[in-house]
């Protein structure tokens, strides 16, 4: 009951935050002088192609780029009727990409959920690797287990991602026949989801997951190890041993539960940092994620496309923090009962 109320409350604040973010995103995108169309018009006029100018002028009207900024924002969001009535983000119309000359939804369509898939896989990888290694390193601190895992971890942190990607591709392809580049076999692109397509995606996912996840995993592992070591020195651990618990059972039940908090709280940070951090990797590996698209859109002042992508990243962040907050409330009674009379 309490959890439900909390979730509802967090959903509400999330929507509010999203609203604020949307305004900021819009303003920041429009901060540089000019916009895509005015740049284009200037260019076309310079080269004397009046037909193009007419089209650009038409688009300007069509997307209300000639009205004041706040009106543009309201129209973009769908709070105010534009030239075609209410048709903004909340109505499901993501706008027009001038650069690609296609609707935004068409451009980002597949890469949107591929992004989610890649990053989810990376996050899962981070947790799957960091959890056992971190606990092991703490339980066997200052032994070869600890030192080895720390060494590997630092290697993972220190190697540039794209370099790791190239190395993995070379050797992966040579010895394990792992396909190079992309997120699926080219013949599946644009095809509906089938069993074969899924298999193809899974095989292609191996290298990107590893590349994007390594540094996150090693950082997370070190953090978990440090937290665990702190907890292992606490008196309640001694109490548990004095009860006659076996070390492994004790570790899992007591210190790990407490050390878990920062671990869970990191989900919120992990998602967005991976989306923005994986741009370079996506370019190198030729992944059809949203990162490279964002880069192009920002460079060419393609405002609807970049606005939408930024909003999407913000949404991912907010969803991540919300998941971690709700998980924390479930995991930690101290947070759950905060403010309750004792």
């Amino acid at each position, binding site marked *: 009951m309490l959890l439900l109320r909390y979730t509802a409350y967090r959903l509400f604040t999330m929507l509010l935050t999203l609203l604020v973010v949307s305004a900021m995103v819009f303003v920041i995108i429009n901060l540089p002088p000019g916009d895509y169309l005015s740049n284009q018009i200037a260019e076309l006029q310079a080269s004397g192609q009046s037909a193009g100018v007419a089209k650009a002028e038409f688009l300007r009207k069509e997307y209300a780029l000639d009205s004041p900024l706040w009106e543009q924002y309201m129209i973009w969001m769908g709070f105010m009727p534009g030239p075609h009535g209410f048709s903004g983000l909340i109505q499901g119309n993501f706008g027009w990409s001038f650069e690609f000359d296609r609707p935004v939804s068409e451009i980002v369509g597949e890469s949107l959920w591929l992004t989610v898939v890649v990053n989810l896989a990376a996050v899962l990888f981070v947790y799957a690797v960091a959890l056992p290694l971190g606990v092991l390193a703490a339980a066997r601190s200052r032994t070869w287990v600890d030192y080895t895992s720390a060494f590997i971890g630092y290697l993972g942190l220190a190697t540039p991602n794209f370099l790791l990607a190239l190395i993995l591709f070379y050797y992966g392809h040579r010895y394990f026949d792992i396909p190079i580049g992309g997120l699926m076999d080219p013949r599946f692109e644009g095809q509906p989801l089938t069993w074969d397509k899924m298999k193809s995606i899974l095989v292609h996912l191996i290298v990107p997951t590893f590349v994007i996840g390594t540094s996150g995993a090693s950082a997370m592992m070190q953090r978990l190890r440090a937290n665990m070591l702190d907890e292992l020195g*606490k*008196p*309640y651990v*001694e*109490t*548990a*041993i*004095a*009860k*006659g*618990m*076996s070390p492994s059972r004790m570790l899992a*039940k*007591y210190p790990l*539960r*407490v050390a878990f908090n920062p671990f869970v709280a990191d989900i919120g940070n992990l998602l967005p940092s991976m989306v923005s951090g994986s741009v370079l990797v996506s370019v190198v590996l030729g992944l059809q994620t949203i990162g490279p698209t964002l880069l192009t859109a920002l460079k060419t002042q393609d405002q609807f496309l970049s606005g939408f992508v930024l909003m999407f990243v913000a949404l991912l962040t907010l969803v991540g923090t919300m998941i971690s907050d709700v998980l924390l409330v479930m*995991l*930690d*009674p*101290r947070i759950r*009962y*905060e*403010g*309750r*009379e*004792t």
Partner: protein
Amino acid sequence: MTPLLSVKDLSIGFGGAEPVVQDVNFDVMPGQTLALVGESGSGKTITCRAVLRILPRTAQFRSGVITFSGEDGQLVLSQLTERQMRNVRGDSISMIFQEPMRSLSPLHKIGNQVSEVLWLHGGVSERQARRTVLEQFDRVGFPDPERAYDSYPFELSGGMRQRAMIAMAMVSKPELLIADEPTTALDVTTQAQVLGLIKDLQQETGMALILVTHDLGVVANMAEQVVVMHKGRVMESGPAHLILEEPAHPYTQQLFNAAPAIPDQQTVGLPMPAEDLILDMRQVSKTYTMRSGRGWKAEKLIYACRGVDFKLARGKTLAIVGESGSGKTTAARIALGAEPPDPGGEVLFWADPDAKPTTVHKMTKAERTAFQRQAQMVFQDPYSSLSPRMRIQDAMTEPLEIHGIGTPAEQRDQAAAMLQRVGLNADMLKRYPHAFSGGQRQRLSIARAMMLDPSLIVCDEPTSALDVSVQDQILTLLEDLQDGHNLSYLFISHDLAVVARIADEVAVMRQGLVVEQGPPDTLFYNPQHPYTKALIAAQPEPDINRPINLKLVALGAGSPDSWSEAFRFTDSMIPSLVELEPGHKVRCHV
């Protein structure tokens, strides 16, 4: 009769250094209580942990044989495998630790943590375990066992958590209980109740008890056998009545002399003089609002101080006594101007006898600087109140630098002189705090407070983190300084025996209210308020013939609405302070 536990020639060391426990021998008979007495660093904790083999990883078991002859026959604990040892821990021998606040996992329910012992050892079903645990909760004095079972540790008070720890240790009916300073972190009245509980349970189950403590008063109340330890060696051991009545070893005698006690008073004391005041707190109240965490719930008001009136004369000591949460520290913080009182209260300060009083909370910047030179503070924890990254010299001269007094050379000379004044050497100036013991650190913080030559010092439990013999030295130092510099102290403590020695007037606080106030002699001769009586009764005396009177403790230590009609108060109805004799005030209905 074979002893239940026999420890022979135990030696334990760290690294290549001298052993911290050396050739320790003792026996515990079934059903008997043995007290391991010693100050910090005496090796008593390491010794008792060696029995259960829960030593720090770096500790080396150098020699010794520990034999346990319980129901499962004779077990040589020092030679069992780790797996066999697990069956002993928590089942035949269990342990209670010092800090109830931190010895329970914050994330698991009390019931779960206690039943776990039964799951581990009894192999019983969850439901059976629950029933047994609920019975145990009832026996250790939880008013509502069902509710306690489903509570988290942070929902319980310190005393209740220690009861939960005791329940956890007792639930498997051990033959031996090891209690490592089980009451040191508790208020005196709670301590008395917890000790009484352990004793009752012991009588019921017939288990033996090893009680580790530094407090001879606790020993006198609990033990049949005593082992006195110092620097890892046994100084003296034998039956409690012999050691307590005629301590043979000089170290034991020294412990006795240092232990503070509440004196037997035959007369009332002299009230504090009302003229030449240095500090006057008038109708000081402080209310905090606690946010409920959820926006739609009402805020909760916490009355930290309610209508406190204190007058402190120059060169005298006013002590505020009370349990944690009684408002004593808040009152001191307001006196120093660290926090404003609620509207209506004011604090006056006289820098010297002829000066005009300044109102502490309405000072100009210049007045405030002058006031800060006059009023200084000594803190409770000598380990965290000195910056570990500052040399002693820098820490000592910093106040002078802030107030721009003297050249660096003069400042250094003054720091050196002050170190000698507090009983340390001038050549220690270049050291860092970690090179000093707890007692020396407390001398350092007193020296630092004295650097500006103040006239008022607020001492916030300055000795409660120290051993008794060190406490004795620090109190002597404070008395010396008071005589030499005509200092006034506002002395905060939870320990009536300490206060008995140093104070000219004592105010006993409970829930933000002063319940009784008067010269210490008067309070001990003629205590009126049930809470004062409980505090006095709960003080363990190192005298085997004067056990704690638990009935008196129970009468006064409960919540204010359980007090007898004349003293009862609730949030809406608070009796006023009534002056019984000169300088002796009690909060009661007349």
